[in-house]
């Protein structure tokens, strides 16, 4: 047996081949994503769910209609493509003129809805889908065994990818697409029905994802969650390759698959994280991506979230009111629920600090919540620190992580920032999965509550509740102070118009990094305290679903308002608790809330309330700063 660097050649080539197959799927999915992003400036978070629909569609065709694999290759993408077109017409079209973030949020919501519905119908354990007879069996190549079907996957995806590339780069239709990507209004001014072209292109991108799904069905378990984690890897692939480049997406997809395979042969524990490490390196050296040429997409119209600051007296009353409600709360409601809600409210407020006031919407905030929880738990359980010290340690770990990831992520703006934070958080997830001290899937259990300052036994429910209340109110006050401080004002200026703030002499990157770090710290405080209260730190806290939850809470409540995230957190936690019997429908409801919020309800509950109250008073319209209009002739 030949070994290469200690690994048997059979294993090496086998893993490379498996990696190549994974790469084929990455390539197809990132291709579709790149095409859609290029045309519509929408980061289609639902791409993974649509891939899943293709696979499940093939299964449904077989199971209920007896239609086999070969027909499914055509019918499933067609069906899903039409579904995509319907979505584009009804939900995505209004979003093109808005900030790209809304597109990402809407498609994120859609992915939750789609996945939730399918999970409800089919369970999450997956259905078997047989390899079509014509492609079964395999060949023994000597250095490894190659199943025929897997070879077919590579060939088919290469054909599809190169075919798509050819259409885009070498045909007239492709020239329309490329031109419309650059300057859609001008192309329309030449007489081409661009909206229809966009719609069909979206349908095609979606169909591509579904096709990948059909190809995947016999290899991977056909299950409603199969797209959920793949989509994040695909995001990383697209960031590595460069958002505008079609060939970049294809080449990078295969490349990443190969690198993963290689890693799996030599250092299996690293195979899940390697793509994110690659992304971090590329961001440092070539921020536009390996093949990227598209300039950073300019932001669209951002809904002004500036709520007029209420009078100071109102503020105090509101705060005291909230505190009073929370103090008497345990008499009426299970204190465990209240504590959990408060900690998530703190998390959401911390997130809102940069997302609402700073307009840096991070899709990876879970990494701070979870890391702090693990570190705090370890400090309390293994090092035996008293709770306040353990929590402090946990919080500091979040600060450090915040500085490092912030420094990496701040290089990107807008939608790229969101994708980079998402990918970095996923890397942390996989590190947490592997690291011995976290307990991996088992979680870090039986974290002792200990004695606060060595005096107050936190196992006493009243003391524990009081402690959590103090932490929450303290954190909230800190955020409120920061927002109204000069620092907060600069942040707002940066949010409104960064170049202008820069021209005034502010080093905007430093401000953004400081805000990001502060947000990470407070999120860490919430996570560390949570670990002590629930006596458990688990992978859920670092999973991207958690980042999605805090986004949900903040948007539902009202981005850019002080109390919005609090309201949102309480509502979402209440839903989790009291609607638990609805099972998957909670996920669907979450998704629906996202969709509704983006389409109709952008200010969130508290935001809309403030706007409503503002309208019913005499409006004193402040002098508006003239919008930056294109050069008027």
């Amino acid at each position, binding site marked *: 047996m030949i070994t290469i660097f200690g690994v048997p050649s059979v294993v090496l080539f086998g893993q490379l081949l498996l990696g190549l197959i994974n790469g084929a799927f990455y390539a197809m999915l990132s291709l579709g994503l790149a095409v859609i992003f290029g045309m519509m400036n929408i980061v289609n978070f639902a791409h993974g769910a649509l891939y899943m629909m293709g696979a499940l569609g093939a299964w449904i065709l077989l199971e209920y209609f007896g239609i086999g694999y070969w027909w499914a290759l055509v019918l499933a993408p067609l069906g899903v493509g039409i579904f995509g077109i319907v979505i584009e017409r009804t939900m995505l079209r209004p979003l093109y003129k808005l900030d790209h973030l809304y597109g990402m949020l809407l498609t994120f919501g859609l992915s939750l809805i789609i996945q939730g519905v399918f999970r409800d119908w089919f369970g999450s354990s997956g259905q078997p889908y047989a390899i079509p007879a014509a492609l079964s069996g395999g060949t023994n190549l000597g250095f490894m065994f190659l199943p025929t079907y897997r070879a077919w996957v590579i060939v088919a995806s290469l054909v599809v990818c190169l075919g798509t590339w050819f259409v885009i780069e070498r045909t007239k239709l492709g020239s329309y697409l490329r031109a419309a990507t650059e300057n859609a209004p001008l192309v329309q001014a030449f007489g081409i029905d661009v909206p229809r072209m966009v719609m069909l292109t979206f349908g095609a991108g979606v169909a591509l994802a579904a096709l990948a799904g059909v190809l995947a069905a016999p290899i991977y378990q056909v299950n409603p969650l199969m797209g959920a984690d793949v989509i994040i890897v695909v995001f990383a692939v697209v960031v590595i390759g460069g958002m505008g480049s079609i060939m970049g997406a294809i080449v990078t997809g295969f490349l990443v698959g190969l690198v993963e395979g290689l890693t799996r042969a030599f250092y299996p524990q690293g195979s899940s994280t390697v793509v994110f490490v690659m992304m971090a390196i590329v961001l440092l050296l070539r921020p536009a991506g390996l093949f990227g040429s598209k300039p950073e997409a300019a932001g669209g119209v951002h809904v002004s979230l500036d709520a007029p600051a209420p009078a100071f007296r109102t503020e105090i009353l509101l705060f005291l009111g909230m505190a009073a409600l929370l103090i008497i709360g345990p008499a009426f409601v299970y204190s465990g629920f209240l504590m959990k809600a408060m900690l998530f409210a703190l998390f959401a407020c911390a997130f809102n600090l940069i997302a609402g006031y700073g307009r840096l919407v991070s899709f990876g905030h879970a990494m701070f919540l979870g890391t702090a929880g693990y570190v705090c738990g370890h400090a309390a359980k293994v090092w035996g620190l008293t709770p306040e010290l353990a929590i402090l340690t946990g919080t500091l770990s979040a600060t450090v992580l915040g500085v490092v990831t912030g420094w990496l992520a701040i290089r990107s703006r807008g939608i790229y920032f969101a994708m980079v934070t998402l990918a970095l958080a996923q890397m942390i997830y996989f590190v947490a999965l592997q690291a011995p001290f976290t307990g991996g899937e088992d979680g870090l259990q*039986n974290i002792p509550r200990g004695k606060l300052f060595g005096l107050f036994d936190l196992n006493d429910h009243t003391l524990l509740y009081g402690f959590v209340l103090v932490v929450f109110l303290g954190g909230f006050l800190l955020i409120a102070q920061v927002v109204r401080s000069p620092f907060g004002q600069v942040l707002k200026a940066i949010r409104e118009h960064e170049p202008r703030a820069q021209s005034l002499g502010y080093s905007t990157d430093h401000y953004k990094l400081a805000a990001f770090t502060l947000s990470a710290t407070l999120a860490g405080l919430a996570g560390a305290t949570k670990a002590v209260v*629930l006596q458990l730190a688990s992978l859920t806290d670092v999973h991207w679903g958690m980042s999605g939850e805090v986004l949900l809470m903040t948007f539902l409540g009202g981005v850019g308002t002080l109390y919005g995230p609090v309201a949102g957190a309480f509502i979402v936690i209440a839903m989790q608790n009291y609607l638990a019997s609805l099972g998957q429908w909670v996920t669907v409801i979450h998704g629906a809330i996202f969709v509704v919020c983006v389409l109709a309800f952008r200010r969130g509950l508290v935001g809309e309330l403030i706007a409503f109250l503002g309208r019913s008073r005499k409006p004193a319209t402040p002098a508006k700063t003239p919008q930056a209009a294109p050069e008027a002739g």
Partner: protein
Amino acid sequence: MTSNAFRKWLGAGTALALTALFAAAPASAQVSDDQVKIGVLTDMSGQWSDMNGPGSLVAAQMAAEDFGGKVLGKPIVIVGADHQQKADVGVGIARRWLENEQVDAISDVTNSAIALAVQQLTKDANRVALFSSPGTTDLTGKQCSPTGFQWVYDNYSNTVAPVNALVKQGKKSWYFVTADFAFGTSLEKIGMDQVKADGGTVAGSTRNPFNSADMSPYLLPAQASKAQAIFLANAGKDLTTAIKQANEFGIVAGGQALVAPVMFISDVHALGLQTAQGTSFVEGFYWDQNDETRAFAQRFFERRKAMPTALQAGVYSSITHYLKAIQAAGTDEAKAVSAKMRELPVNDFFAKNGKVREDGRMVHDMLLVEVKKPSESKRPWDYYKVLATIPGDEAFLPLSKSECSLVKK
């Protein structure tokens, strides 16, 4: 008011107060909160939902109904919840049940990690835990509890017999493909220890993430090692995926033996006899063994449209025994009930001559089964050939080797 009248009032008032006090004090024949509430904590829709999940809930409901719906005159309430295989969800539900919803016993608890947490919670809260599904031996070992019971199987009972048998047949070198969490790692350790004890060698091991869509990257090193036997320390979907892909990659055709210690009839059903035929493993229960088992299975099938797995039958059996113990103890207080559970023998369709030991392990005869060839199967779900019955005392870890603090040595 005259002083006489006042004294009468005082006397009456005191008498009233004292009566109320005594009436409120828990008398020995009382049931807490006037109901016996059992929570079935399981995976309702995920990887393992076919082996337990909604079927476990059905089994629990059947147990309550068959017992008459009441014990000591108080109603039996069954609730169920989905922990989605997530530690925080499971712990959260258990905590809420115990702190806020007056649940007296938690049943099933798929997922060894969650089970260990529940064990701690029930121990601290003085409630009962009736584990049907988790495999980790720590539940009756290092982390045993006076009120915690493991009913159907554990990683030891399912590993020792097959490993023994195969090493005797000449499969000396073993490769381990292990699910990377408490269940898998515990299973792997027992397997490795047994292989070495039998004189075999461990050729290597790979950890696979729990819930892997594609097991082939982890099967590849197993194939390359040319080990004579591949021990799949996985269960549920990961296991069936691994078996299917082992076939796809020619591993089985290449002559390596696949060993799947923790396999259930639901897995065989998912794989189909064509793929699963010839596999042998240890089972805690088979529906088609005798008339009693068939009677239960028929009733279960009517409600669930699938035959009960050993885990689901175990839920029925453990809950029934728990209810019997409450009856005998005259209370639902956890320690008293647990004492009775250990005292009473277990004699139902699930286990004949079953006995609950000090460490909480329910010891009963296990079955060594082999999956029939498609031609040998005469009707739906006719899947197993019972090769041998392994007496309980042989199947489970002997008390002398137990790490449980409750066992007097």
